């Protein structure tokens, strides 16, 4: 197959050999080996495949790789900087905000996206924003707590 498409993920450019109509999720997960982005439903209903495209949280199962290639993509693997976790990751870890953790990447990416748009969200904003992310283990209260903690950490860092 001809490598006709290029995509920028986590600051690195990749040549893509998968067909241009392939959902971004499969290119990230299967072709590029960035397996932190998860398949959970394939219909944009569970949020496990959430990545940032041009800084905005998007369901990577719902967008073709060719459409996604126009903007830089960030996956959960791209959040760590110099061995230091992103505040949202750190907060999830400290709050123990996961059980089976299969939803965690998507929860983290959605939360990062939310906090970029709204640095000081109210509880109701979090509930509203994360409504599209499913956690089947019922860890929701800790996830809310973790995102609130992350918001505080980010505000303190920005000061």
């Amino acid at each position, binding site marked *: 197959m001809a490598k006709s498409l290029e995509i920028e993920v986590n600051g690195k450019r990749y040549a893509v050999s998968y*067909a241009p109509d392939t959902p971004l999720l499969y290119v990230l997960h299967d072709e590029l*080996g960035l397996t932190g982005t998860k398949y*959970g439903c394939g219909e944009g209903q569970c949020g496990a495949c959430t990545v940032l495209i041009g800084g905005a949280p998007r369901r990577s199962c719902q967008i073709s790789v060719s459409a996604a290639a126009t903007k830089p993509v960030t996956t959960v693997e791209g959040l760590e900087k110099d061995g230091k976790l992103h505040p949202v990751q750190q907060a999830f870890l400290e709050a123990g905000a996961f059980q089976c953790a299969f939803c965690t990447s998507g929860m983290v990416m959605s939360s990062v996206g939310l906090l970029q748009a709204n640095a000081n969200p109210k509880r109701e904003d979090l509930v509203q924003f994360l*409504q599209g992310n499913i956690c089947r283990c019922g860890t929701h*209260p800790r996830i809310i707590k973790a995102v609130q903690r992350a918001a505080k950490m980010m505000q303190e860092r920005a000061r």
Partner: protein
Amino acid sequence: MNTIKQNFVAEPERFEFTAAPIHKFDLARREFFKLLGSGIAIFVVAKDAFAMQETPAGSRSFHNEELPKEISSWLHVGEDGVVTGFTGKAEVGQNIRTSISQTIADELRVPFESVRVVMADTTLTPFDAGTFGSRSTPTMTPQFRRVAEAARDLLIGVAAKEWNVPPEGLVAGDAKVTDPAAKRSLSYAELARGKALAQNLPAEDPVTPATEWKVAGTPLPKVDGRAFVTGGHQYSSDIHLEGMLYGKVLRPPSFGATLSSYDDSAAKAMNGVTVLRDGDFVGVTAPSVHEAQKARDAIRTQWKEVPQVSSKEIFSYLKKNAEPSSNERFRHQKGSVEDGLASAAHRLETTHNVAYIAHAPLEPRAAVAQWTDGQLVVWTGTQRPFANRDELASLFHIPENRVRVIVPDTGAAYGGKHTSDAALEAARLAKAAGKPVKVVWTREEEFTWAYFRPAGLIEVKSGISKEGKLTAWEFHNYHSGMSGIETPYDVANQHTEYHQVPLVLRSGSYRGLAATANHFARESHMDALAHVAQMDPFEFRMKNLSDARVRAVLEAAAKSFGWPRKKTQTGQGFGLACGFEKGGYVATCAEVAVNRASGDVHVVRVVEAFECGAIVNPDGLRNQVIGAVIQGLGGALFEAVEFENGRIRNPHFSAYRVPRFRDVPEVEAVLLDRKDIPSAGAGETPIMAIAPAVGNALFDATDIRLNNLPMVPNGLRAAGTKLSS
């Protein structure tokens, strides 16, 4: 042979279980040390396994090359000081990896960080029947405590020999053996160096009482937490092998349909595609999921379908098709229900329907299979790795020791991953393609071809005296199962029975099994009885309850909840429910808010008290308890599998509603730590009282009694209309 098979009788509703043969572990000792490096190894053998061996226990300390056949757990202390525990249990989000690590660290007196646990690998770990029935904590933690204690003694023995002193004066702690008299010490790593010492011993009760635990009993964070927040952890669906292909299976349009015409020429013409047809099994492999899907969809087929029962008629079907009960195990009788009803001041009859629900673990079934020189290795998310191994061996007619099943920590299961579906499909396709193959089920496949929590019909008949004491109790469960079927209340005249019905949909275990259905029916009925007796539901229960542990959780939940509460707004309601199962005791109080205009129901606050003996990790337990409450809200309020003509009508998250952030109440877990009672499991029982607690709160808010699960799939207004018609 293993302790589970000895002590554990599977509940009849575990329909997915097939009779498994007794398997033997056949890794030789030499191989064991080759795999792990030199050191010290301890093996625990089931108590009764010892008695069954031909040679007396004392003489079996590894004079032969073979490990004993009936080993239930083992532990290795390496030259690098790393302590490795081995268990056939799987980590599926219940956090047992952390509790086992804590237990080993505690008893061996080593830092928590130096312990690792190898789990659910049929080549490396001892046989295990499966991770189900809340058995991991009660079976594995005492065994690892015993094995760690023996390792400690062995290390002391090695040090005593080294120093030529009696072992009695030596002390083990901080990962070293110390001789306080001579002020010298040797680390476990130093003691293990160059050794290939092994010892096996019978499993006995744990020696260190919970009151003296130091690492166990503390809220340590989940092992490998960092790998989960960075996306680094590799689930089965993330495993990638060199040259690996992706497999897709062609599914019939309806259950039981058979192929009548078939044309795969278009699929076969596609680049890199292999098509396998084997009877009614049709699968394809391709270099990517997307291409595999396209190839699968290009196969033209016609199917012969068969008529099926639909969800609309399922409950009358269950009643009509019940099999005459011949099994005494399904029936429990005491006194005379007839007499009890005759003497009652009030009588009540209720009927409860419980819908099929799906586990819907966020990671669907997945497997990667690789054949090398006739040896098969499969990575798959399953709760029963050894059953998977045996099914694979039998499918391909190869010995079990040529199949290895490895279970990476899995994206949840909830009782839904006991079968070998994805493993069999991946292995079959890998064999046909001559390359490693990955199969990941789609959400639709998971909602359609996995198994469900069975539907059920429950009939309850009771009588109470003028003073509000139960005089008669009759309880019939059709199809859903007999877990939690026995009433915890004191009643002289009772008849409890489980009626089997042939399967309609593929069904099996689900977190708590039928305990949720049976508690919903019983606790809703008890609430209605309290209302008839004009008593407070808490007081009514306490009056009929002498079990001290159920009373304790009920009192604890009521106290934290502030029972009895006064209503401060319209549409507000409070309810409670309690019970026990699998060594866990639970009481749940719920507050609901009903919007009378829209019929919308919101669960505002839940307090759940839970007691399961000595707590191994309070933080992990809290996560499980709160998680069970939230998951249980789905089945309580809106989850139901709809089916017609052999098709699932709602096989997507867009059509099958699971609890989301907006559905989540404030949840408080009150954990009672009974250090005087051995630890029981906690993965299941915390789920079973939330549905009746919410139902009883809805009655308190509206005077509408909702007797079926789910209670309000379309809001309360629809449910209310249905009730009055």
